């Protein structure tokens, strides 16, 4: 056996990086790429053997399934780019293409005899709601006016990086301020929007995972605007396509990535980051960690020693509500969408009208009916995402994580089957489409699956809930006061901007820029790349 070691392993030498990014989810990947692009010596560590976290894909038989994405917002168009497209195309220049999905959604609420297809475009949206609920037009138009006002204000707040000028806000962004303290329902009621129209307008609530009676209006408005004006987009080759492109870019820019490496400890001394300890038994030095891990896990488990965590950090975590988690049924069907009669890309099927009632159901017993589902037929956006004559459909429903806490291992597989069966039945009933006898591949991912692959706290997919008091706007305004460890930033779904692809991608950029600023201020780095 000839085996030449060309470069001895140097196990003993302690490595140092300007920044260590913990976790290669959407946030961590963008953070690492942004820093690498600035010439910062950055190391990205990921416990799984793939980039992406939730943003991934997997293969079963002749199908490659998207793990989590329904549609990516904040892309805008090539002419009118929005945040995510600017990150991908202008700032990072990654090799990934995206395809616009055909319509915003079809919402079906049998109980209220609603079945409406909502197209993209503000005018088209307004017309579709008016057609379904005659007389709603005025309120919907006023709603869009508000949404626009709020958008302008959010841009201002975003740019202020935690330093908002109150006078300027009052003068130029009054509607933002006046709605800022309210939940979606309160504002739509004030607009005198008919209840039925509200159901249609708020159908995306399940992407935010909190009922409209509590959901911050500001946040809902921001999200709806980017979808309806900029469209919903999906990556050409599943999420694994763009996360692998990010991985490639990080390396090209001089960043380093190591997979199968879990950060077990974030080392802190006198309130300052000093390094990390990995599952490989290595200590790596750094003064800056960007955690694509929840503050819940970081403060309660990972910071070492735990005496370095101030009491207020636990309070912050405990004051907030952890978001919901999901169950997804992935189906590889042996007929095309056309043969099956699947006409739409995205279905919201709600067996009850009120989001409160639907959310409540998600906190009850697991085997009870789960009346909210968001279902996507990927071929309606990417016709060749599966072989000719086949199609991919995935059905998603929401749960409070607590519901899964007492599941017994011996019941787990049967439970998956039971829940999947019911979701498939619900889909068939609501749409009159039969899929049951065309199933060639089926996989069911549960909160346990998500915890297994990403190690996320309690299987939570949706970060912290966007209650009015804990909305993204309030978090961004408070972010400078809510940092308890010097050198520690968060990105990803649990960071200030909240969950969802676009938010977590952008959170990586923000965390990288804040860290960069600190590196410059502390003179840890000199010249930076433009």
């Amino acid at each position, binding site marked *: 056996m000839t085996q030449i070691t060309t470069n001895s392993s140097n196990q003993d030498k302690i490595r140092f990086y300007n920044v260590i990014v913990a976790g290669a989810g959407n946030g961590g990947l963008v953070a690492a790429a942004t820093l690498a692009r600035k010439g910062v010596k950055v190391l990205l560590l990921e416990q799984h053997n793939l980039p992406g976290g939730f943003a991934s894909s997997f293969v079963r038989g002749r199908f490659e399934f998207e793990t989590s994405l329904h549609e990516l917002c904040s892309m805008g168009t090539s002419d009118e780019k929005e945040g995510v497209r600017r990150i991908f195309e202008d700032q990072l220049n990654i090799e990934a293409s995206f395809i616009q999905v055909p319509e915003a959604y079809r919402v079906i609420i049998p109980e209220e005899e609603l079945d409406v297809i909502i197209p993209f475009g503000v005018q088209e949206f307004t017309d579709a709601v008016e057609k379904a609920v005659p007389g709603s037009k005025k309120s919907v138009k006023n709603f869009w006016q508000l949404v626009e006002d709020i958008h302008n204000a959010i841009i201002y707040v975003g740019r202020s990086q935690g330093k908002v000028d109150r006078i300027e806000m009052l003068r130029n962004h009054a509607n933002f301020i006046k709605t800022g303290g309210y939940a979606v329902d309160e504002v739509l009621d004030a607009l005198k929007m008919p209840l039925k129209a509200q159901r249609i307008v708020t159908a995306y609530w399940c992407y935010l995972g909190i009922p409209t009676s509590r959901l911050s209006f500001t946040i809902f408005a921001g999200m709806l605007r980017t979808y309806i004006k900029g469209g919903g987009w999906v990556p050409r080759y599943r999420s694994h396509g763009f996360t692998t492109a990010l991985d490639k870019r990080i390396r090209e820019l001089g960043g380093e990535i190591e997979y199968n490496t879990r950060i077990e400890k974030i080392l802190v001394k006198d309130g300052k980051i000093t390094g990390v300890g990995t599952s490989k038994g290595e200590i790596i030095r750094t003064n800056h960690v960007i955690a694509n891990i929840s503050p819940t896990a970081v403060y309660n488990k990972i910071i070492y020693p735990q005496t370095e965590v101030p009491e207020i950090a636990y309070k912050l975590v405990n004051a907030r509500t952890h978001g919901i988690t999901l169950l997804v049924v992935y189906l590889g069907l042996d007929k095309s969408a056309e043969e099956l009669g699947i006409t739409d890309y995205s279905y919201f099927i709600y067996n009850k009208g009120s989001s409160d009632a639907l959310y409540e159901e998600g906190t009850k017993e697991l085997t009870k009916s789960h009346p909210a589902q968001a279902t996507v037929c990927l071929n309606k956006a990417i016709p060749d995402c599966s072989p000719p004559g086949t199609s991919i459909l995935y059905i998603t429903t929401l749960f409070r994580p607590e519901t899964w806490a007492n599941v017994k291992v011996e019941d787990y597989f049967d439970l998956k089957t039971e829940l999947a069966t019911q979701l498939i039945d619900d889909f068939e009933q609501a749409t009159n489409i039969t899929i049951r006898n065309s199933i060639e591949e089926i996989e069911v991912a549960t909160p346990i699956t998500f915890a297994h692959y990403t190690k996320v706290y309690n*299987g939570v997919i949706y970060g912290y809930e966007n209650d009015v008091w804990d909305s993204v706007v309030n978090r961004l305004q408070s972010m400078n006061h809510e940092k308890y460890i010097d050198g520690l930033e968060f990105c990803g779904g649990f960071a200030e901007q909240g969950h969802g692809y676009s938010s977590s991608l952008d959170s990586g950029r923000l965390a990288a820029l804040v860290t960069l600023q600190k590196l410059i201020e502390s003179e840890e780095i000199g010249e930076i790349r433009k």
Partner: protein
Amino acid sequence: MRINIKGNIRDILKFTKLIPERIERIQNASSDKITSDPINELAFKLHPDTQHLMISDIFNETKSTKTFKLVPDLDSNTRHVAYFRAGQYLSLKVDVIKGKDTYRITRPYSISSSPFEALKGFYEITIKKTEGGFLSEFAWQNWKVGTKIEASDPQGFFYYDPIRDKPSIIGLGGGSGITPFRSMAREITSGKMNANLTLFYGSSDEEDIIFFEEFSALAKNYPEKLKIINVLSCEIVTLAGCLEGFITADIIQTYADVNESSIFICGPQAMYNFLKTEIDSLNLPTKRIRQEMFGEIKNITQCEGFPLDKAENIYTIKVKMGKQYLEVPANATETVLVALERAKLAPPSRCRSGECGWCRSRLISGDIFISPESDGRRIADKKFGYFHPCSSYPISNLEIEVPTEF
């Protein structure tokens, strides 16, 4: 438009109170630590990183087959064996000692005991000794009661799914490929799995039939749930009820209703090749046929498209693995994974069939040959130069980056 929600002053006041309210809420919140994470605890029970097991019993099945009973190694932190679905496999991680050298390799083995027995605290695996087999020969010589074995969590997708599959299962097994069917048979006959199984089991000789007594007895006691049809390829057949020859479409159709069944196939590579034409002639949709992986392709030179002129070549692979940079030799007819294991690198792997993606590595430069049937890569991985070393053969010098074991 200027909106009023509850009145101008109230609205502004509500807004200006948001941050003070936030501060107050945080101040008033509990400062208790969160110490439990029930969902990750459950995930870890189902999918432990490593299962530390110990051989508690060994049964001789045939002259070339043994069953090893595995229980938690109580010297480790493994307290129970992970639950699974009948048909899944374990990837064993073994230090094979040859002379002075130790090679850390993996091998996949279907669990031959049933899920309900895992709840009682054990697995069984049944290994057929292969001529020149690297692990099986080592195991034969060295594995005793008390030997410790590392295993992955249960893996693979060769299991009955009540939503997808017909509850009438036709099993086509060959040689050691009976193992997942034994797991299913036990689960079915104990009433834990709501399906019935008709197993066509091919062996080369009467003496080579694995689990003959067990299947005969189960079939006798549960005629509604289990049928076994032994098919023997030897010259003389003396055992009652056994058929001569190979498993053919005709035989299958004689004993089972193929149109109302799901077919599950598990056996050696040669059996798949033979069965392909037989199964094709049944004209069934893809969803009715599920096939277990068969591991590395042994005679890669017989694969269509393999460059035969390169078969004798030995190439050099430059490997970056963690902080190490190494150069290792590689035969064109052995997988990149085997070359790495021969060089004692112990990269991650599980299925060794191209399917699970656990060995996913980066091809920086050079050419590899992958048989289409064992190319389980994601589309983007193909585009961005990632490959699965377990199903890739070097056909030039290579430069690769391999992840270290978790």
